């Protein structure tokens, strides 16, 4: 019994580390998207993703440390993450309607490049 217990704990430990590693990689991919853009909505989508992955990260850390109080943090992050996305959506919309120079630039650039950008 204790042997199985030991192995399962080790398995969990490895799994947590694997998932933390994967999430760290995800973080970097998302950051790359935020830096590269090329458009404002792209960055906002990436930021939204960052929050989602962050929630996963918190959960993984919670499993690793046995501190379950991190659940609340994850929930709160989800809540305000949504609010942020909403606010950014509004932001994009209003700036676009106001013909913001930055956004106009971005749109004309993506059009000349012929695609949404890479």
């Amino acid at each position, binding site marked *: 019994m204790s042997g199985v217990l030991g192995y399962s704990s080790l398995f969990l430990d490895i799994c947590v580390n694997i998932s933390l590693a994967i999430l760290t990689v995800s973080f970097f991919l998302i950051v790359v998207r935020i830096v590269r853009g090329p458009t404002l909505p792209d960055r906002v989508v990436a930021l939204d993703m960052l929050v989602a992955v962050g929630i996963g990260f918190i959960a993984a850390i919670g499993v690793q440390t046995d501190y379950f109080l991190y659940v609340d943090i994850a929930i709160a992050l989800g809540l305000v993450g949504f609010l942020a996305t909403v*606010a950014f959506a509004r932001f994009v919309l209003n700036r676009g309607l106001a013909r913001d120079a930055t956004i106009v630039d971005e749109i004309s650039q993506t059009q000349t490049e012929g695609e949404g950008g890479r």
Partner: protein
Amino acid sequence: MALTGSEATVFAVLAPFAAALVAPALTRLMGANAAWPLALVPAGIFLFFAGLVPDVAAGARYTPTLEWVPSYGVTLSFYIDGLSTLFALLISGIGTFIILYAGGYLKGHPHQGRFLSFLFMFMGAMLGLVLGNDLITLFIFWELTSITSFLLIGFDHLRAASRRAAIQALVVTGGGGLSLLAGFLVIMSVTGEASMSAVLASGDVLREHALYPLILLLVLGGAFTKSAQFPFHFWLPNAMEAPTPVSAFLHSATMVKAGVYLLMRMHPVLGDTVLWTTILPLFGGATLIVGTLLAVRQTDLKLMLAYTTVASLGLLVMLTGTSWEKAIEGAALYLLAHSLFKGALFMVAGTIDHEAGTRDVTRLGGLRKAMPITFAAACLAALSMSGLPPFVGFIAKEYLYAGIWGEGGVPLTLTAVAVIGNALMLVIAAAVAIKPFLGPKVDTPKHAHEGPLLLYAGPVVLSLTGLAAALLAHDTGVYFISPVVSSILGNQVAVDVHLVPGYIGAALILSVVTVVLGIVLFLKIDALRDAMARLLAAIGWGPDKGFDQAIAGIVAFSGWLTRRLQGGRMDVYMTMTFLVTAAALLVPLTLTGNWPDTLEMPGFRFYEWGVLAIALSGLFAVLVARTRLTAIVSLGIQGFAVALVFMLFGAPDLSFTQFMVETLSVVILALVMTRLNLQPRDHRPMLPRLFHGAIALAIGVGLAGLLIRITQMPFDRSLSDFFEQYSRTIAHGRNIVNVILVDFRGFDTFGEIAVVMLAGLCVLALIRVRPTKDRAAALDHAAGDEALQKSGEARL
């Protein structure tokens, strides 16, 4: 404090201030006639001090004292001896007639009450100055004379010349006052005494102290400016912008003598050194010559008198500066004489101006018939000024010649200076007192006739006093001159004063020479005047002009400097601030040798490295963002990473809050940015970019180094141990951080929520309150933006 005897001095000093309060109301009530009851105040003061004269002459010294600022050792104390008594008598005595004269001179003037009030304040200040024993008290009255004379000189304030003269007097005498303050403070610290009487008793302490030159220079700075010594003489003639009663009082009899008073007062402890006997005669002599020469050049009666006042002050300083007993006797006599004749002559000049409408000597003549009493008074005063018998001016001149001549050597120069000066003085006396009255009648702007009693009472009494003082020479000597000389010399002496010289000595010969020279010069006065005018034109510059240039220079310089320092550009302010910050970090770190020398490699887990790397890449993203919109979105990354850091290092509450706050910051940023219409690109030229980068790097390096150094030191965790110990056991909370927030350190939170509330209110005030004007233009700018957004909202 008794109402009689020396103890009542404080009332004598404060009485004029009380009168100053009453004067405006009384004047409103009684008009010009208010001068009569008001004059009772100085008259009473005069009588009070007159009552002290016999005792003082007998050698009595009084130091009536009142507690004032005990914790700083300042008392309201007065020093009554021969010198201060004579001054007090002159101030109150002449003051009585000045008040009367002012009543007549400014009759019907809408601000006569205010004027009298100023005069009284000045009188009180002057009394406090000459009587002051405590050095700080003395200084306060000293400055008060500057302040009140500022108001008096600028009385005719609609004229630029008055304003200029007033501020000039304030700046010159006030500036000198600051020098005097420093001098007094050094004297106090050197002697350990706070009162004049105690300092005077300190003997050679000051003279032998290493700081003596400094002390002397500081005191002279005060005395020379106040007494208009060359090259600070220029403010005095300009002060003639003041109404004539002021000129008569301040600029002849009293205030300008404050400097002389101070020199005489401190002679026992500061005088009779090489420095003293070099500087004072030098400047005094120069002032005498400059003053008389400039006086000759004038045609305005008041200006002529003013310059002779300068000259007389120079003479007094010169005499005091010799430290010779005989010369000082002469100085004492001349002090008395000058006050009497100059006060009288100024009033005469004022009366002429008042009655004839002009003070220009070239436009006056033949007034003797129209103004006989004034003419008589003028003659008497002028004779005294000319140093002719039987007036006190004559005695003074005899004594001072005797004083200088008697010593031989260098005095030859001084004697020459004195003779020339006195001769020119005679010229002026003749020009002022005789020229307007004699000769054919000249048409004047106003039809001249004798002024009222209020106007001629002063000149008559003062000039007669000059005569009486000479006729009663012996008593003058016993009651006034001997006590004064005793004070100046610091030991009891008896001066025997005679109207008729008991010898045919050098002094008499010099007097004769003076008179002859004077008459010759008077006959050549026009030529002399032209010569002076040409000379001055050739020089083309003087301290008076220099004053204007100095003020203009200071103002222009300050404008230039301030525009450099406060250029109005925020980025420059920031850069400067951070430059200083960088220095504040790097310099002490380097000087105290506190840069860390080791850096241990931490056992971070890979995801911890990862989170730090994300934080840095977030910073990088903000830095490289080409548009502000991109930068804003990128800002989220580092805040997010910081929250993860808090979570990984045992701070769930922090992490919680950081997530919330960071997101809400971005939300508010987005809500705000929604309405900003920005130009996309950020242009910062390369050079500033490098410069800013260097500063930023320096601050980063400094703080990092400091933090590494600090965290390498052992740490005292006792506060947190306490919190851990009692968080649950006493404060009933398992979340220690929260218990700290609401209990252990609840006060911080108290302030913190006040900040939160205020921030909300600030934002409300910012958004809701709209400016009253300039609004349309500003709104125009944002209007297109707003309109588009409104249409956008409708569609959502």
